[in-house]
């Protein structure tokens, strides 16, 4: 059996993380091609023609984003978003750990395409040992002149710095990432201006996810048409999907976009333990509205999941089987966003806080069915009302859980109520009338 994967090809070969191992497999040939055979504009248009969509969550065309950067001699920057912190996502970790040079090569080519002289890999601080691996690979790339003041003596300067964060999910939001990289608290910025116009240090900045950039050498090497031979028209290429939760074989699987979701959850990951069924699944990380068993035959693409009211996001599938309580799942989800809210925008700061508190009451049986309506209305009041989508990322899954599993929430409220409880304490309500009422 030949390994026909793209990003994960030979992923467990022990020498792949070294520059020799990577070059032995044709690595860094694409940099040569990008530098000596193609103009930056040709590079960008080839990336745009490939239809490669961002793999970090938003799914925006990578080449188009690059074309938004102004031409000219000003300082421009590339930031690779390696802050992967969303529950369910762990693909970038394995890509960086086992094939760091693929990412570095992607960074070099993307920098050449947009004319960036400084590239940063913003990696979450928790991935300390992975950052060590990246640092070693970067040193090798400098040594071999794929990075530095004159890359391959072709006249272009590309410096690459691995920047370790220190624990904050919000730094995966692109403008918060820029603030963190500038040495500040990681608060999101108002958009526009978008980073492509005014990003790091006020300069034009291209921000892409690890997996997106890891695709770049393959597109430059083999051409846009070859790349479009994988996947669907609107979702070309392959995708590394992280599958976790109640499945027998959790892990990262590289698939062609467009295969049925059932094939990923059951065929690859083995499905829930024997005797159990899928109750709910997040198709694209904890920010995605949940789907149910009835949705398992959806093709795994950006467009099909969006049409079903959810999203492909970062490509992280979390499976909850019939042993999992949905109200508790909602509570854990809300707690995460409450913890990670930076506190800058009121709807998110207060909305995540109160949603977590209300869900806690539901789980403890101290809520009333009316609270479910309040929870739903709080979600509606968060969506679209903040600088970034962190609050929305809680509102969408929690809102979908209340909508799709409302009976389970109501049952949780009922069953946790103490027997004989719920009697009115008349001493609390049989109070003297207020003076106003007496006068009337």
């Amino acid at each position, binding site marked *: 059996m030949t390994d026909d994967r793209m990003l994960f090809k030979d992923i467990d070969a022990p020498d792949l993380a070294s520059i020799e191992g990577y070059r032995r497999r044709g690595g860094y040939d694409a940099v040569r091609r990008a530098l000596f055979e193609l103009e930056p504009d040709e590079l960008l248009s080839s990336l745009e023609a490939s239809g490669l969509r961002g793999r970090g969550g938003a799914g925006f065309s990578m080449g188009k984003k690059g074309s938004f950067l102004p031409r000219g001699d000003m300082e421009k920057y590339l930031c690779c978003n390696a802050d992967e912190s969303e529950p369910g996502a*762990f693909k970038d*970790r394995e890509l960086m750990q086992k094939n760091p040079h693929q990412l570095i090569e992607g960074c070099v080519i993307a920098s050449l395409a947009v004319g960036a002289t400084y590239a940063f890999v913003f990696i979450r601080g*928790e991935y300390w*040992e992975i950052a060590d691996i990246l640092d070693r690979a970067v040193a090798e790339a400098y040594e071999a002149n794929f990075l530095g003041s004159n890359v391959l003596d072709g006249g272009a300067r590309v410096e690459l710095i691995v920047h370790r964060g220190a624990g904050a*999910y919000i730094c995966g939001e692109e403008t918060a990432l820029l603030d963190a990289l500038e040495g500040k608290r990681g608060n999101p910025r108002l958009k526009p201006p978008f980073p492509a116009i005014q990003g790091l240090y006020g300069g034009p900045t291209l921000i892409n996810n690890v997996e997106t950039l890891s695709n770049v050498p393959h597109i430059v090497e083999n051409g846009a048409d070859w790349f479009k031979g994988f996947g669907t028209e609107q979702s070309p290429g392959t995708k590394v999907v992280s599958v*976790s939760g109640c499945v027998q074989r959790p*892990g990262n699987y590289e698939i062609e976009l467009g295969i049925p979701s059932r094939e990923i959850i059951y065929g690859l990951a083995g499905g829930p333990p024997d005797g159990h069924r899928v109750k709910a699944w997040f198709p694209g990380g904890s920010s995605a509205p949940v789907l149910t068993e009835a949705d398992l035959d959806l093709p795994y693409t950006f467009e099909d999941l969006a049409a079903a009211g959810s999203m492909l996001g970062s490509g992280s599938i979390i499976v909850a089987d019939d042993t999992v309580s949905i109200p508790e799942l909602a509570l854990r989800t809300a707690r995460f966003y409450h913890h990670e809210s930076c506190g800058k925008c009121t709807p998110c700061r207060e909305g995540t806080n109160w949603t977590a508190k209300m869900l806690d009451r539901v789980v403890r049986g101290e809520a009333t069915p009316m609270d479910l309506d309040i929870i739903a209305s709080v979600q509606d009041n968060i969506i679209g009302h903040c600088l970034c989508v962190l609050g929305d990322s809680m509102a969408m899954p929690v809102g979908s859980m209340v909508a799709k599993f409302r009976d389970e929430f109501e049952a949780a409220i009922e069953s946790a109520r103490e027997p004989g409880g719920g009697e009115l304490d008349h001493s609390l309500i049989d109070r003297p009338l207020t003076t106003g009422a007496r006068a009337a």
Partner: protein
Amino acid sequence: MSHDASRQPAHLVRSTDDLTAEERRRLIASMRPGDAEGVPELHEVDVPEELREEIETAMSRYPQLRSAAIPVLWAVQRQYGWCSPEGIRQAAAVMGVTPAYLEAVATFYDLFATSPIGDHRVLVCHNLSCWMRGADDLLEAFCEATGADLHDAHHHGASSADGEFFVKGFECLGACDIAPMASIDQRYYGPLDGADAIAAIEALRNGEEPLPDKAITLRSAAGEPRLVRRASEDR
């Protein structure tokens, strides 16, 4: 309601338009809080030479020196075990920023300790996928093995009484494939059960690497080495 004019700041009860430049400066100086610290001078702090070198190396790597704030705080935490006020002051002096600036950054990020914590750091992921696979029990096992308080561990983290360990329930560490898992002294291990927690703490007490066979770096990718393609009739 009556206002006691004598209690109001001078410039609020009378116009300051006719002040001389000198008077205006004196007024401003009188309004400045007495405890606001400016940028400390290098000679005012006793920064260890190796820390200073680490900070300066970090600063020199970036186009703008404030970008080094997070790496600098990592260096301070390595030196002192936490981002102590004294360490922050030393770093501020080397960077040429106020201690308040660095403190504001330090308090934003989960991995910076702004109070002293135990030496070995055990972060137990207790988010969705790990929770579904038993993270709460794992956190409890680590607390039992170290003596750290379980309730505090779930929230802001808890240190053991002997100061050896710090245990914290963490919001998603990005390793759901090895759920339930923990980051021990910045390395990932999983999947873990209660016995692993006891063995890991025992190994750390003896100065050994905990759970070497459970390290994430040893784990092979899931599935078979082939691309899963679409069925030809779907094309």
